[in-house]
């Protein structure tokens, strides 16, 4: 089903978008939230289950302390208040991939609330996203619907259930309504999720790999006419699984809502599915009335009352957060805001840091990643981090250049060889024979050969036309197949022709 869309520009002329982002993060705990089962990915279906996470009669949950600790860390990093006392609650609804037919979650007493996260947009503008709450809950199992056209339950002939994921700890992070982003709303959505992902990774509580479903985003969006205070009816686009998709989903919904509203229609409150192929959304289930989850405090678990000393201990132990780190690195590297921004946009920050840690100086690490390698990633259409070269290898190339063993041109060939799978830099140098000719005898012979073959040019130089030296240097490079240090060649040429440099 496709909708008529109005252009993005026209949509924003008439309407003001308001977003709410709900992000689910699977924690990287070794065991599940309420039992001792492993959370490792990729196991045989239903091999990581027990009476508790299968919801067998009589089984009872026990809270994973690391899960609580992780939730508090996330709350602190999001500048939230941490509840002095809170409870789990049961969210009651029937679904086959939910073993107890209720989800153990939190309702009106989240562990963390009232925070914010500053996110930088691509041009460096900082936008503050207010955080409503972060709460703990458990993941559901996974249904695979077989026989339908789309892999969805509709039209399927049967469904397979895998409960390995059931009970994996989740933290749900909910923003307050994001207002005032205007035309930049989709960009803010993307930047928020990106910043949140960096934060989660920095905290070490999850790998937050969106492509693995470890981090999923629901994009709630509504439009209201400019100047209107009241929020419009929202749509909820579920489980958007990449940064780019978050931006596209928000953009699409703005255009779709605007089309419906400007033609006099009304927005239906419903969940929607996002389609990667064309960036569109289609309706999921309609929420005619708000679903009644009959929340009530989970009687099988005792309340959680994190001691203030513990919270402060966790706060003191928080790692350097991404925004602080970026500021520090920018200063360390001595680069301008726009240069730092392009490093960020390229996703190069960790790669450069790792390259520096492997021994390269900051300038050359940045030069290789933002230059030759960024070009290759663009050409090949892959993320920088996906290129088949490691920061250690880049650092090695950089070391070979500064020792004079390679010049820039040779270094680029070495990188090309590494990317082509020919081995590490030293192997490529060896196999391709890419060493700067530093043997003075060999180099001298090459210079002599070039002078002999280019008598007229040599005379010009002897006559004081130093600019002509370039041609002789070029000739020497040709003879040495580029493996000479150009600076040294120039010195030799001038020396041999008896001219002062």
């Amino acid at each position, binding site marked *: 089903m496709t909708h008529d869309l109005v252009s993005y520009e026209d949509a924003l002329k008439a309407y003001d978008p308001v977003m709410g982002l709900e992000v689910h993060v699977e924690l990287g705990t070794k065991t599940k939230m309420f039992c001792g089962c492993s959370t490792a990915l990729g196991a045989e279906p239903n091999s990581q289950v027990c*009476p508790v996470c*299968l*919801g*067998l*009669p*009589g*089984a*009872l*949950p*026990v*809270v994973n302390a690391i899960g609580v600790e992780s939730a508090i860390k996330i709350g602190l990093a999001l500048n939230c208040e941490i509840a002095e006392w809170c409870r789990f609650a*049961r969210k*009651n609804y*029937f679904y*086959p991939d939910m*073993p*107890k*037919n*209720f989800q153990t979650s939190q309702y009106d007493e989240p562990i963390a609330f009232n925070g914010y996260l500053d996110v930088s947009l691509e041009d460096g503008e900082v936008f503050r996203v207010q955080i409503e709450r972060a709460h703990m809950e458990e993941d559901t199992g996974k249904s695979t619907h077989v026989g339908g056209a789309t892999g969805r339950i509709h039209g399927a002939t049967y*469904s397979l*259930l895998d409960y390995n994921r059931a009970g994996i700890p989740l933290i749900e992070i909910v923003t307050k309504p994001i207002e005032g982003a205007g035309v930049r709303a989709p960009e803010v959505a993307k930047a928020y999720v990106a910043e949140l992902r960096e934060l989660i990774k920095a905290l070490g509580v999850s790998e937050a790999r969106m492509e693995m479903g470890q981090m999923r985003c629901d994009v709630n969006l509504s439009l209201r006419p400019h100047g209107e205070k009241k929020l419009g009816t929202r749509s909820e686009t579920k489980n958007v699984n990449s940064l780019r998709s978050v931006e596209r989903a928000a953009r699409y919904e703005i255009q779709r809502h605007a089309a419906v509203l400007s033609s006099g229609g009304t927005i239906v409150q419903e969940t929607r599915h996002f389609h990667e192929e064309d960036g569109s959304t289609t309706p999921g289930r309609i929420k005619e009335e*708000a679903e*009644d989850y*009959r*929340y*009530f405090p989970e*009687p*099988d*678990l*005792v309340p959680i009352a994190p001691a203030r000393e513990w919270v402060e201990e966790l706060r003191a132990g928080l790692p350097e957060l991404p925004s602080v780190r970026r500021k520090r690195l920018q200063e360390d590297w001595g680069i301008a805001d726009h240069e730092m921004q392009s490093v960020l946009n390229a996703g190069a920050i960790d790669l450069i840091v790792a390259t520096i840690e492997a021994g390269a100086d900051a300038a050359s690490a940045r030069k290789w990643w933002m230059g030759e390698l960024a070009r290759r990633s663009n050409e090949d259409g892959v993320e920088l981090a996906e290129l088949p070269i490691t920061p250690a290898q880049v650092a090695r190339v950089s070391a070979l250049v500064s020792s004079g063993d390679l010049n820039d041109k040779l270094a680029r060939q070495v990188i090309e060889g590494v990317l082509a799978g020919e081995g590490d830099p030293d192997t490529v140098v060896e196999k391709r024979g890419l060493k700067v000719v530093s043997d003075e005898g060999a180099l001298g012979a090459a210079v002599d050969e070039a002078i002999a073959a280019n008598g007229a040019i040599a005379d010009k130089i002897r006559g004081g036309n130093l600019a002509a030296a370039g041609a002789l240097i070029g000739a020497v490079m040709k003879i040495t197949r580029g493996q000479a240090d150009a600076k040294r060649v120039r010195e030799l040429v001038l020396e041999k022709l008896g001219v002062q440099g």
Partner: protein
Amino acid sequence: MTDLTRLNAAETAATIASGEASAVEVTQAHLDRIGAVDEKVHAFLHVDTEGALKAAKAVDDKRAAGEKLGPLAGVPLALKDIFTTKGVPTTVGSKILDGWIPPYDATLTTRLRNAGIVILGKTNMDEFAMGSSTENSAYGPTGNPWDLTRIPGGSGGGSAAALASFQAPLAIGTDTGGSIRQPAAVTGTVGVKPTYGAVSRYGMVAFSSSLDQGGPCARTVLDAALLHEAIAGHDPMDSTSIDAPVPPVVEAARNGNVKGLRVGVVKEFSGEGYQAGVVERFNGAVELLRELGAEIVELSCPSFTYALAAYYLIAPSEASSNLARFDGLRYGIRVGDDGTRSAEEVTALTREAGFGPEVKRRIMLGTYALSSGYYDAYYGSAQKVRTLITRDFERSFGSVDVIISPTTPTTAFPIGERADDPMAMYLADLCTIPANLAGNSAMSVPCGLAPEDGLPVGLQIIAPALADDRLYRVGAAVEAGFIARWGHPLLEEAPTL
């Protein structure tokens, strides 16, 4: 040779320990008794002959090897069919779990096994422990050994009837609103609801999580204490389990004494609806306590008037959620899965066929009470009443050591009499519910036969949370006082069947 089934648990253990009889002989005697009378009583849903004899043999082997035996080693026990038993069917009295063989043992089951207690089988109960007569079992009612046409109480009627008919000297019950104490009262046996959190709920199929509590059932106060000690104690698998030492219940049961003890009699546990003979026997118990040196104090706990109403909001609310997992997908029966129906339809058909009317009634009550817009008025208000009841208890326990009342307002009523009148049925738990709502410990101990019908009457003793030993101190004194008066234990007067 003595009839091994007439011995109480402490005597049985001594008999085995001394070598007078082997655990296998004791177990076989009880299996024979079950074979002889249970067709009439229907206390058991499942008798695990093989498992019981194997467990008994293990005790005998241990003894032969000179290993030290626990205080209840080799003693047979009837286990309420609400605790999971690995490899042995567990139905919770419901058709929906017909044929389910749990893959794991409840913590309580494990503790029984570790103590060398021989589990004879699983006992009948009201479906999901919802009821006061065991008539709500999907597998037919249980008869009261005093009069087989009458109810044995509920929900743990099977466990109480097994004790009163000498099919087992020990039994396990669970008490959400009185399901241990009320059956004990109407069968002339002893039943204890320990402090909430004293006995692990792991592996005990949940009815109402914040109220459910497993506990010991026996024919004597000392036997109950021995069993209490075997099953209580912290369990890391149950978050609501109390991490504190078990009160010295056995010592208390051996030293029954009420001299100088302040015993509260609550005004609200009397009046309309109490059978004359029950009141008479209760007053007799009060007199006995006074004679034994207790000080009787009259109390008022106004909030108790609302206990029944609060209970019938909280328990069904939690039950509506706890029972949601029975959807036919993973275990138990499945109805209507003919390849044409959706999972949702199969779940609906399974629940329609698998749950009995009382369970459905409570699921609907609870679903309604938790609904948005009604939550505050129902579940929310009920929780407030719960707080008030807890405060009334706290205030009372400032001036008395224990509170006593009749366990249940009437003696055992005829099977079928209240089956169509849920409100009348609910009144059976009038006196027992407050202790569940507050999480206190409570016991029922026999206090005689009602003159008008010759049926047992129970005395309820309530103690503060974590003071379970007081129950045993008072219970043992009352038990000894009455036996001295009657010349024999009350159960001697029960029909031999």
